[in-house]
């Protein structure tokens, strides 16, 4: 990608992000209430999107040589760390280091 193409990509991402933030305020200006169905979707979708993001991260690993084995192992490790300490940053750091050790030494 050229620098210009990179800038356009970043701009496209920014535009998409900003649309999600501003749209509700444009559709429902001060004084208008959103329909029940939309408000209800707002309570259930955020939970589901996290699941989508986890799968998004693993999308290429599933079809790779090891079929996501190091990723699965590292997520298992994160699960254990998180049950043990319940500290978000500790689990993220521990899981990442564990994964790096795996792919640099075992699954080369």
């Amino acid at each position, binding site marked *: *990608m050229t620098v210009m*193409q*990179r800038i*356009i*990509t*970043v701009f*496209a*991402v*920014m*535009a*998409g*992000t*900003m*649309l*999600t*933030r*501003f*749209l*509700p*305020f444009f559709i*429902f200006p*001060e004084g208008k*209430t959103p329909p029940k169905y*939309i*408000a*209800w*979707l*707002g*309570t*259930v*979708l*955020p*939970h*589901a*999107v*996290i*699941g*989508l*993001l*986890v*799968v*998004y*991260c693993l*999308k*290429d690993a*599933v*079809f790779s040589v090891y079929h996501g084995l190091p*990723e699965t192992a*590292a*997520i298992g490790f994160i699960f254990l760390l*998180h049950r043990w300490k319940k500290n978000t*940053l500790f*689990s*993220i750091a521990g*899981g*990442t280091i564990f*994964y*790096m050790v795996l*792919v*640099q030494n075992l699954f080369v």
Partner: protein
Amino acid sequence: MKRKAFQAALPHTIPIAVGFLFLGMSYGFLMRSKGFSVFYPMFMSFFIFAGSMEFVTVHLLLSAFQPFYAFFLALMVNARHLFYGLSMLDKYKNVGWKKCYLIYGMCDESFTVNCSVIPPPEVDRSWFMFFVTLLNQVYWVSGATLGALLGYVIQFDTKGIEFVMTALFAVMFLNQWEECKDHRSALTGLGCSFFCLLVFGSGRFILPAMVLMILCFTFDRKKEERETKREEIE
């Protein structure tokens, strides 16, 4: 008035500062390890200001040029903001010129604080929310910039460091799992996405997964409504 609001806002943002500095630094460091100069993480963290999407954008910048795909992916990944917005329609009312910035800077963490914390009565509400949002953005941009600068100094085998993004989402998933007793929506998200990944392949599964999720939820809601009606009759 501003001073008081700042003093009230600061303590609420300290835990976020720790998290943002750490995550922002790993993001900046990741960008640097993929060969981007410090200006990329600095400007991207400032303009996009949506953590998860910035990590995703690293992938986008390394693959073929597809601006429309990037735009729609940003829409999908950040769709949750739509619902944040819906919940904040009332709170962001009558705050004057600050409204624009409050919406622009509405990341998950700023939303969480502004949505749940009620500032003490002597503090101006709009300035309080403004400082929460501003401080969070300052932490995030500083973290990303610092991380990238660190990437120039420290050199080690960074293979696998991109897993920090997976780890972040996995932990968010676990946190949500424990906070919420009803695991149906979390499982629906995971199940629909995995199913669509297998069916549509890694390049095209996000949109069908979102549609499938909404269909599942709507179907489930209809079923529940029928059941409650039946119970009422009985």
